[in-house]
């Protein structure tokens, strides 16, 4: 729908129909059986955000329980255990792992790449329905007896507990694993094979590099989760004996199996958020990303290194000192690519023309919170401090800084960044920024306190505690309520935009990657005409257009676009 106006600018032709992917076809089946990656992304988004609400409710419940030592809102410690288990399992498997790749990635990747869809659209739909079935299995497990094993399902407790929800939820995890694998397969093949002419590897936006690294991890790591849970199911139902010491098995073997997947899993959670943040910093400071190749290579390096460090979750499990030392040493090296990214992002901001939009707020929050989370990971990677800190609130604080404070913040920042594109509406910037600040403040109150709790010895997953810890728990819980308010305001901001937000232009923020060259919302087939691929971080030829109420590419200012003179047929839409 682009045309050239009198000034030789490419503009969107509003006289054309306003048909877009949302209005293209109607009816439940047109969504349930859609092959359109954008619709699948939207369905994932709704599912993921609903699960986030569910996991958040369990978080509020468990934090409220911890306001006082001993019983607060429940007299049953097992109930508390069920709450933190469900909070963890829902957040890890139903929310964070699928959130950026499946919800945002599905929507953005083909458009950003310049393709018409992912490589295997039906596999994509199948991935989504597998996610739904996995979620249903989790719900079933809540109804048939729940489970309180912790999201890590360690044996021998998970194989011997009488709570009957273990098998259904673990079946759900198996199915969710395949949803993740198929998404990863789709993305790897799409990026390898469906790049349009001109889109070489090193012209891809960094979000795509991040999604590619994530997809590789998904494909290579998740099958090990599948065999782990399969063995757990067999052990629990049939008593095969591989993990059971009373039958000669080895429970630490389960941990090796489990963490071989679950460590790459945490990088599956964070690497896409890093990719989003690369985009946010570049676009919202209108400055070419600093160190493009370094950031691209570091994404792949993180993916490779992530497979080498799983034992750092097992330092106190009876793992041998030899392996403890090896894993500790390698874990230090895995921090390096992440640090490379942080330095490059900071350098991107320097002398940039920073717009303090809501996405930029989230990106700055990410920068601060990821730095704290990443650095505290080093405390835990060091063997001798980990002896003191393992299974305390220090670990809880560390992983919430990286999973909630970085991955989720990155995801919500990306959601705000691409919201105009996905929905065609602008949200209230003021509300968005206030919500981000409230979340940021609430988050730090909640979790920074927990570093102190943990270093003073408060164990994690404990229902009861010594009275001297109470003040920290109260502060932390208050912080969690503030965070909850912040998230509710975020939800309100976004939902309100659907009803009364102003119409979004194609390019509200001034991005150069390809998704900003199609209408907001995009048409069904993304690009009626193959878009031209330039440098996606060169913002010099963008200018604000009043009639568009957004940015447009001024062709006369772009040397690259003029060098390959566009061969446009007359009357092309």
């Amino acid at each position, binding site marked *: 729908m682009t045309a050239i106006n009198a000034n030789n600018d490419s503009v969107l032709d509003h006289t054309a129909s306003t048909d877009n992917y949302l209005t293209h076809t109607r009816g439940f089946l047109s969504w349930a059986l859609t092959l359109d990656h954008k619709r699948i992304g939207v369905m994932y988004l709704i599912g993921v955000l609903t699960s986030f609400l569910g996991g958040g409710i369990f978080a509020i419940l468990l934090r409220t329980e911890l306001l006082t030592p001993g019983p607060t809102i429940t007299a049953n410690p097992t109930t508390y255990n069920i709450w933190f288990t469900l909070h963890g399992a829902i957040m890890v498997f139903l929310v964070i792992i699928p959130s950026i790749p499946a919800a945002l990635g599905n929507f953005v990747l083909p458009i950003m790449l310049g393709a018409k869809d992912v490589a295997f659209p039906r596999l994509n739909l199948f991935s989504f329905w597998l996610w739904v079935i996995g979620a249903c299995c989790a719900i079933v497990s809540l109804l048939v007896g729940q489970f309180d094993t912790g999201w890590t399902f360690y044996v021998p407790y998970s194989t011997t507990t009488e709570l009957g929800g273990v098998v259904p939820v673990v079946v759900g995890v198996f199915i969710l694993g395949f949803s993740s694998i198929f998404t990863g397969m789709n993305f790897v093949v799409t990026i390898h094979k469906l790049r349009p002419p001109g889109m070489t590897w090193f012209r891809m936006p960094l979000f795509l590099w991040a999604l590619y690294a994530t997809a590789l991890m998904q494909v290579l790591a998740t099958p090990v989760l599948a065999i782990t849970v399969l063995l757990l199911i067999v052990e629990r139902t049939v008593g095969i004996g591989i993990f059971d010491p*009373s039958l000669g098995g080895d429970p630490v073997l389960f941990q*090796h199996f489990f963490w071989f997947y679950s460590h790459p899993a945490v990088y599956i959670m964070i690497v896409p958020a890093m990719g989003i943040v690369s985009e946010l910093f570049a676009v919202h400071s209108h400055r070419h990303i600093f160190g493009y190749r370094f950031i691209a290579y570091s994404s792949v390096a993180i993916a490779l290194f992530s497979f*080498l460090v799983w034992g750092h979750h097992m330092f106190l499990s009876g793992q041998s*000192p030899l*392996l403890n030392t090896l894993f500790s040493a390698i874990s230090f090296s895995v921090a390096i690519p992440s640090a490379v990214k942080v330095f490059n992002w900071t350098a991107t901001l320097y002398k940039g023309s920073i717009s303090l939009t809501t996405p930029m707020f989230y990106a700055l929050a990410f920068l601060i919170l990821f730095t704290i989370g990443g650095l505290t990971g080093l405390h835990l990677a060091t063997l001798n401090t980990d002896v003191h800190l393992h299974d305390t609130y220090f670990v809880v604080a560390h992983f919430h800084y990286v999973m909630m404070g970085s991955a989720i913040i990155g995801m919500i920042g990306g959601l705000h960044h691409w919201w105009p594109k996905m929905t065609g509406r602008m949200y209230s910037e003021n509300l968005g920024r206030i919500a981000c600040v409230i979340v940021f403040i609430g988050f730090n109150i909640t979790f920074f306190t927990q570093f102190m709790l943990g270093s003073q010895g408060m164990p994690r997953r404990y229902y009861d505690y010594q009275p001297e810890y109470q003040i920290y728990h109260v502060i932390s819980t208050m912080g969690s309520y503030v965070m909850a308010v912040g998230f509710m305001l975020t939800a309100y901001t976004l939902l309100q935009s659907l009803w009364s937000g102003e119409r979004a232009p194609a390019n509200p923020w001034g991005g150069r990657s390809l998704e900003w060259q199609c209408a907001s919302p995009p048409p069904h087939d993304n690009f009626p005409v193959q878009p031209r691929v330039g440098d996606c971080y060169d913002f010099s030829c963008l200018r604000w257009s009043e009639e568009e109420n957004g940015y447009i590419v001024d062709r006369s200012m772009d040397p690259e676009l003029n060098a390959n003179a566009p061969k446009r047929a007359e009357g092309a839409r």
Partner: protein
Amino acid sequence: MSHATHTQGGSHGAHDSHDSHGGEVHPLVGHLVPVSLLVGTGLTLLVLTIITVVVRYIDLGEFNIHIAIGIAVIKASLVVLFFMHLRWDRPFNLLMFVACVLLVVLMMSFTVMDSKQYEHLEFKGNPPTVQTTLERAAPGAPVARFTQYAP
């Protein structure tokens, strides 16, 4: 791009294919493996299987397992390279396959290394559930010898 006007993906494409294999139709995409190569690979695999079964009955001490696995690796390579076409396929596909094998090797080596570190601490007798089952269901069964615990 071929201008064939067929409507089914059936075998009507002969008129737009060039035969370079003695009168044979050439596929639109991909590469044709000669039948002789496939049959030869199959026969080699069978021969290797026979060899590996025969070697099992010859006592070579600790080399038995290495020879058996070695022959298995050769057989696997033949299947992967020729039956699965990787010899003529894109290098990235080979890279993925090698990567996943390396990951399995990585997991195996670290886990076995860990296991070996504490094997001197392991009790090698009947585990508790086994012992109680034996006493209840097969009293007097002479099974399950164990070695003395030696610190």
